[in-house]
């Protein structure tokens, strides 16, 4: 057998497809219905390449889970807010209709991710670590402090710094 024909590593898309049942569970745990989980998976699959173009993905399955989890959370957030908003508008008899914006992205995702990556990279390395542990791992500031060997107060400052830096990225998502 000619070993040279074997690809060195599966692509992100291949990892995604090979682990689809697990990713489906990740999504469904957040959005609750199988139909929505399917939508999340389709959307997430299309977004994989954007992230991979920005930075080396060291843990392909971990990254697939990250994308699915975050897209699922965004769907869930969108649906929760729209449902509450509709009820609220009925209660206070507002005429303004709820937004029908599907959670689809209009801008060039790759460029936006690259810009965000540059903003995060301009922060001190430990600040970015603290932010990633908070944003991606869902760790509390206290847990992050223990992991990084610093106080929760310092972690709080670091996350605020990262937040403030990202807050300046509105231009990436500003429509109309």
């Amino acid at each position, binding site marked *: 057998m000619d070993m040279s024909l074997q690809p060195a590593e599966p692509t992100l898309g291949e990892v995604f497809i090979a682990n689809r049942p697990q990713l489906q569970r990740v999504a469904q745990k957040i959005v609750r219905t199988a139909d929505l989980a399917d939508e999340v998976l389709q959307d997430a699959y299309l977004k994989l390449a954007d992230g991979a173009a920005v930075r080396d993905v060291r843990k392909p399955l971990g990254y697939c889970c990250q994308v699915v*989890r975050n897209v699922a959370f965004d769907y869930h957030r969108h649906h929760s807010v729209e449902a509450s908003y509709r009820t609220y508008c009925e209660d206070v008899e507002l005429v303004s209709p709820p937004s029908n914006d599907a959670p689809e992205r209009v801008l060039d995702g790759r460029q936006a991710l690259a810009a965000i990556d540059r903003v995060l990279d301009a922060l001190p390395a430990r600040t970015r670590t603290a932010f990633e542990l908070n*944003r991606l791992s869902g760790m509390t500031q206290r847990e992050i402090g223990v992991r990084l060997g610093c106080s929760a107060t310092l972690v709080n400052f670091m996350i605020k710094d990262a937040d403030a830096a990202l807050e300046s990225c509105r231009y990436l998502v500003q429509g109309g």
Partner: protein
Amino acid sequence: MAPMTKDKDQDPVWQAAWTWVRHQHAQRGSLDDAARDDEFMQWLAADPLHRKAYDEAARLWLLVGLVPPANDVPPPDDAPDPIAGR
């Protein structure tokens, strides 16, 4: 040096929108409650610009979550399956 921060980034509406999105992420275990929050609904319905800023902030927050990590960070505790070593 040209200022990095444009005037519109100082917009209090944008700052409020960003704060709501951050708050909702922190409350993601009970998001339905966070979304029903009366103060949030009042703010959201008060002005179409609030709505627009909120949608933009939510979009930015999602994008931030799609950047591959620079560090070896663990998956969240509530992930259904262990994915260690991959």
